[in-house]
């Protein structure tokens, strides 16, 4: 950006600050100003025009320092743009591309892209037909996601939502996709934790973190998801599939509420402005599966929303539920019971994920869901202290194993073919016979073997490809299950 004097000479228009309240500044003058245009204050600070009347221009500023009455302002005839490019990999930056932490040899990308682009129309959109692997059996087998899907991650605080995002990013980065993590108004410590997780798993240089702290200017925090989406669009157009995690939109809504109330907009339900739905829908509509010049490319968006004591009927919660293609509900009760991830399959929805599954995957999905329903009923029944039949006891015992299998450590991700294999083995009692626990050290070793021993993984992948249905798979397991397990254990 050039300086104040440059733009003054360029536009020959000037304004004066009449009123300043935190992030919102009211300016008189600037007769030809446009919505979303950048303005520069004589102090060097910048802001963006939110709205205007014939007398007053409402500006959102991106600085913490207060702006005094009478400060001169100029318009720039430029719209808000964010720097985009591969230079952002392995960086933690604010929505304007400025580094948040001290980073060696960081050069801000020179390429710029407008932050407020319109969502692509229906003609450029494609049906979601490729499954997005998260590396988490509960999701991949029970609640599958597709490339280009917008899946809401919802739940109380401290129920493992961010951890789920990190595991998904870990899996996706390993598959060569672009991953962007947007932290909106988070604690600096939480941002550092995310950074450390990626560093520990050696993928930090392959992801981009767009973040603002809770004490950063609210104008900047408001921009985070839009900036992250703009960067995602850049990489989509460059020919990559992008995974975008927005953590979280309840905080974003609160920031927008603050901005709107300061801007004297009429408050609606829960004091949120009337256009909060529009603001979020405009953002999430920019994700999807698209036909681009470089083929079918997707922006998969995982927005996070926080609930209060498991209440799914909140304003922002229901708004975003209606904008997304399903939701994964992180249940605090399940979390307290020790289930990791604490996804409640009965309260979660995936609207387009199942259409990406093969017959085998769909069979497994149906089998697990129907079994979990029976298991849940059986568990409730057993609580009455009734004497259980042998079959009920078997169901409960298998159920425990299945639940264990669906559980997972915080930084463990399991390839989807291995998930299907392990589940088939569990279903065929092969794991139980060999005394292998479906969670923990045993499974971690198997995952490692699968990822490092290419011969073993090739055979497993071939077995999965050959099995058309779950019955085929079970048949194969009876014949070759022990051998396959030995190859993974050996």
């Amino acid at each position: 950006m050039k300086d104040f004097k440059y733009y003054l000479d360029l536009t020959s228009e000037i304004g004066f600050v009449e009123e300043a309240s935190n992030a919102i500044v009211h300016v008189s003058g600037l007769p030809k100003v446009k919505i979303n245009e950048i303005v520069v204050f004589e102090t060097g600070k910048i802001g963006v025009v939110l709205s205007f009347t014939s007398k007053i221009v409402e500006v959102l500023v991106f600085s913490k320092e207060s702006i005094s009455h009478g400060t001169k302002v100029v318009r720039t005839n430029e719209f808000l743009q964010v720097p985009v490019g591969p230079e952002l990999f392995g960086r933690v930056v604010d929505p304007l591309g400025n580094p948040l932490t001290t980073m060696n040899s960081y050069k801000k990308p020179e390429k710029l892209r407008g932050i407020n682009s319109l969502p692509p129309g229906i003609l450029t959109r494609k049906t979601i037909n490729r499954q997005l692997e998260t590396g988490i059996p509960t999701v991949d087998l029970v609640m599958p996601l597709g490339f280009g899907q917008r899946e809401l991650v919802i739940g109380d605080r401290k129920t493992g939502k961010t951890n789920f995002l990190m595991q998904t990013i870990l899996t996706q980065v390993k598959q060569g996709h672009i991953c962007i993590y947007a932290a909106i108004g988070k604690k600096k410590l939480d941002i550092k934790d995310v950074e450390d997780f990626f560093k520990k798993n050696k993928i930090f240089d392959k992801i981009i973190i767009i973040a603002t702290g809770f004490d950063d200017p609210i104008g900047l925090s408001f921009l985070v998801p839009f900036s992250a989406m703009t960067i995602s669009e850049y990489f989509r157009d460059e020919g990559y599939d992008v995974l975008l995690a927005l953590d979280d939109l309840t905080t974003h809504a609160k920031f927008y509420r603050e901005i709107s109330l300061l801007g004297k907009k009429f408050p609606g339900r829960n004091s949120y402005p009337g256009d909060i739905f529009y603001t979020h829908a405009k953002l999430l509509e920019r994700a999807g599966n698209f036909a681009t010049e470089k083929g079918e490319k997707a922006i998969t968006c995982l927005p996070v929303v926080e609930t209060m004591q498991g209440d799914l009927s909140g304003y922002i919660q229901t708004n975003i539920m209606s904008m997304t293609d399903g939701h994964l509900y992180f249940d605090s009760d399940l979390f307290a019971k020790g289930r990791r991830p604490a996804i409640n399959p009965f309260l979660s929805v995936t609207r387009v994920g199942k259409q990406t599954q093969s017959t085998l995957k769909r069979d497994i999905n149906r089998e697990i869901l129907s079994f979990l329903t029976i298991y849940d009923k059986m568990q409730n029944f057993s609580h009455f202290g009734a004497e259980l039949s042998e079959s009920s006891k078997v169901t409960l015992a298998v159920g425990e194993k299945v639940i264990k299998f669906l559980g997972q450590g915080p930084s463990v991700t399991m390839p989807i073919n291995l998930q299907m294999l392990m589940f088939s083995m569990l279903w065929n009692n092969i794991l139980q016979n060999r005394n292998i626990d479906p969670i923990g050290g045993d499974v971690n070793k198997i995952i490692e073997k699968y990822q490092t021993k290419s011969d073993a993984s090739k055979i497993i992948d071939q077995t999965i490809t050959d099995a058309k249905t779950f019955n085929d798979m079970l048949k194969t397991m009876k014949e070759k299950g022990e051998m396959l397990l030995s190859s993974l254990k050996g």
Partner: protein
Amino acid sequence: MKKDVSMYFDLITSLKTTQEVINFVSEIDALQLAFFKSEKTSIEKALTSISLNSANKITQAFSKNNLDTNNRVVVSGFFETLKELIKKLKTIKLVLAFDPTDKTIEKIHNFVKDILGIGYVLDIETSEDVLGGAIVIFNGKYNDFTLKKRVEDAFILKNKDILQLYK
């Protein structure tokens, strides 16, 4: 119903600068305070609380328009309308290289009155940096007619010629 604002013409046109406007408004406030403090206070007595110049102008406006100064409602209405009209005055900001005399201000103000009509006041700022000429800011429009700007432009446009002079 539209108010007859012609009676305020002399008072409004006598204000030339924003400083004069600020002073005059504060005098009206002081006058209102003195006048409405007690029901027994007459306008003549209240006028002694402000400057002689402003008091004369207000007295002239009352007599010229035959206003009943004993009627407190009329007097109150007069001041309120006057303040409303003053609020509507538009400001033309001028940045000059020198501190203008009263005569110069009057000249500039008359010039503005001839071009744009009444209802404009001057906000004059002095900055020696501009060297000469003036920066005019009005309605958000910024026009730099200063000598400083001319010199800068000359240095940009005729950079080579100027450097040639030093060789």
